């Protein structure tokens, strides 16, 4: 197993998430795509930590732990926003939320 | 070769039964190199499944008999002497029943839900220490593993509820998830208290820390400290709710939701749900025994000659018996009462308990006479005060008055 296997895998996952976030209409799925991209980035941190010369330095792991906590907070707030928007517009379709468009 | 293997099997069995270290090491050297990992995995997994499936059968019988006693009736008494073959009859009935899938159900998810529930439940057994040398997987972060697989059962319940395409199923599943998420927090917080004092996330190490006796006869279990006692009560309450047991069995409240997320399941799939529910209860009781009741440690000095796993399983059965007893005596809660209890009462109490444990830990250096009494008093005042204040603040303001009837006397 070599480092670039993990990196290419995480790049692929990142691209899938990006494609989803850019192509789907539903706001919830756009958030899901962003979560996928975050996870792909986390995998990079873990892979670099494991393949570094000194795994006793734990910056990689700790960064991912903090990033997981932030992702949880982000998901909670993002989904609350989508629910609140849904109450107002009765839709989660992002293309119909265009009242700020000139 | 074959004689070696047979000899190894016998030696291994003897080591397991007589509570000696490294039972697997007795057999593995006699086997060819390639077979060793497979054999050791099978030997670790199959006894767990066998023992706990048997325990499941016995518990269903104990539950029905015990509930019968509590409700002043006999309970099952037709199959076999005193009805002891009732679990076998139940099992046969379940297996031969027709497996019905609703026409509008999401077939794949409906099929996967019981599997997705049973697998994590079984995985949780991997980290429990059953005896002095009987830990299937001594993980460094074993407790976190337990809670992680416990948390992944929620999605399985959602799958069951949503895929059935039935309002009762969906409502029951939503209730179950809300309840499990809410009670997970006091559950984990009460376990964190133990982790903080024991200084380890490994269940085997936590049990090892509860070794020994105070004054020569009081076991050094965490339940016998003020914070441990409160933590144990919080843990038991939360684990009742986690395993959807009465009085927290709202997800399956028959009078309002038919059977909750199980409504559209029948036959073998229903049996799998039933099994997973009981296995989850055993696992969480086993964790409670490990964290607070000293795991496999003997309750009195001089009883070390009894094999340690017998102590573990007797404590486990005691906890299960208490669960059954509670089911027979306490009525079901309402949804708002259930969630209020978790968020407004158990959660603050668990946090204060964590603080108390810290104080208990740091006052351990006190050496003057009566220090133990003072520490107990201090802890009791902290937790008792919180209990009284929270209880007063949460009890309903409105006076309960005699009910008057408009159209009847």
């Amino acid at each position, binding site marked *: 197993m070599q480092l670039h296997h993990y990196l290419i895998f995480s*790049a692929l996952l990142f691209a899938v998430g990006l494609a989803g976030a850019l*192509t789907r209409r539903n706001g919830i799925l756009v958030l899901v795509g962003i979560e996928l991209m975050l996870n792909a980035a986390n995998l990079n941190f873990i892979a670099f930590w494991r393949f570094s010369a000194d*795994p006793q330095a734990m910056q990689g792991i700790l960064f991912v*732990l903090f990033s997981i*906590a932030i992702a949880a907070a982000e998901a909670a*707030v993002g989904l609350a926003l989508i629910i609140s928007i849904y109450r107002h517009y009765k839709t989660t379709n992002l293309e119909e939320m265009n009242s700020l468009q000139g | 070769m074959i004689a070696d293997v047979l000899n190894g099997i016998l030696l291994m069995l003897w080591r397991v039964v007589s509570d000696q270290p490294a039972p697997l090491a007795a057999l593995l050297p006699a086997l060819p190199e390639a077979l060793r990992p497979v054999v050791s995995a099978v030997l670790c997994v199959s006894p767990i499944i066998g023992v706990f499936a048997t325990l499941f059968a016995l518990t269903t019988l104990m539950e029905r008999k015990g509930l019968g006693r509590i409700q002043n009736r006999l309970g099952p008494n037709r199959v076999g002497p005193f009805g002891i073959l009732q679990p076998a009859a139940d099992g046969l009935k379940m297996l031969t029943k027709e497996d019905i899938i609703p026409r509008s159900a999401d077939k794949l998810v409906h099929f996967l839900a019981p599997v997705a529930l049973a697998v994590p439940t079984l995985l949780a057994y991997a980290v429990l220490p059953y005896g002095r040398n009987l830990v299937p997987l001594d993980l460094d972060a074993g407790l976190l593993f337990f809670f992680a697989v416990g948390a992944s059962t929620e999605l399985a319940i959602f799958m069951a509820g*949503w895929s059935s395409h039935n309002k009762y199923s969906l409502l029951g599943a939503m209730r179950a998830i809300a309840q499990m998420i809410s009670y997970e927090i006091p559950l984990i917080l009460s376990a964190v208290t133990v982790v903080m004092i024991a200084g380890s996330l490994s269940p085997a190490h936590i049990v090892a820390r509860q070794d020994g006796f105070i004054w020569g006869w009081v076991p050094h279990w965490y339940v016998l400290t003020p914070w441990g006692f409160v933590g144990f009560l919080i843990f038991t309450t939360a684990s009742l709710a986690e395993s959807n047991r009465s009085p927290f069995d709202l997800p399956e409240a028959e009078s309002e939701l038919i059977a909750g997320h199980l409504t559209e399941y029948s036959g073998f799939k229903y049996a799998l749900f039933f099994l997973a529910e009981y296995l989850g209860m055993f696992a969480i009781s086993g964790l409670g025994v490990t964290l607070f009741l000293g795991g496999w440690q003997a309750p009195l000095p001089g009883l070390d000659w009894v094999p340690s796993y017998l102590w573990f399983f007797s404590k486990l059965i005691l906890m299960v018996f208490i669960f059954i007893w509670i089911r027979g005596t306490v009525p079901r809660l309402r949804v708002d009462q259930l969630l209020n209890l978790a968020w407004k009462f158990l959660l603050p109490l668990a946090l204060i308990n964590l603080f108390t444990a810290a104080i208990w830990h740091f006052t351990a250096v006190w050496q003057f006479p009566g220090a133990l009494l003072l520490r107990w008093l201090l802890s009791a005042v902290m937790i008792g005060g919180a209990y009284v204040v929270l209880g007063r603040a949460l009890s309903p303001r409105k006076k309960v008055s005699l009910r008057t009837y408009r159209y009847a006397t």
Partner: protein
Amino acid sequence: MQIPFAIIAALTIVAGIAAMSLRKLVHCALCLALVFAGLAAMYLQLGAQFVGFAQILVYIGAVAILVVFAILLTNSSSSLLPTVRSRSWVFGLVVAVLVFATLVKVILASSTVAGRSLPENPLPTVKDLGTQMMTYYILPLEVMGLLLTAATIGAVIIAMQEKKPVEPLKPGSAGAPPTHP
């Protein structure tokens, strides 16, 4: 080492593509949980035990459930639109492919990455992790606690039902509960 990685990677990628392309949103959420599980398995395979379990606990136990709740609360699962893709989906796909191509090119060209294999050093225990977190990283930890508290309260306030002001009913008017002696 190769075969488990290949299985986990294939499963995760397939689940990820499914999560981004299926029509029914609940199926997407379930596939998302599968992606999270695959990533947790990969963390475990890389020796990051604590992170792997935390990933399962937080992502499958909380984030996936949140997504599912949001799908059900916004009633998105029942409405089957004629198309699930946005108008500019071709553009989005092209961007994603370009990003992927660039990343792969950079990874393969990098001299620090090329041919690096697993070092044989001992891995840190959970205790080391906890010690680090409680000493050197104590400030980020506290900030994280503050952030999570703020996010929880914020999410509840945002998603809370806006209450319409209710006029108190006068006794005797229509709709007021009848009074009984």
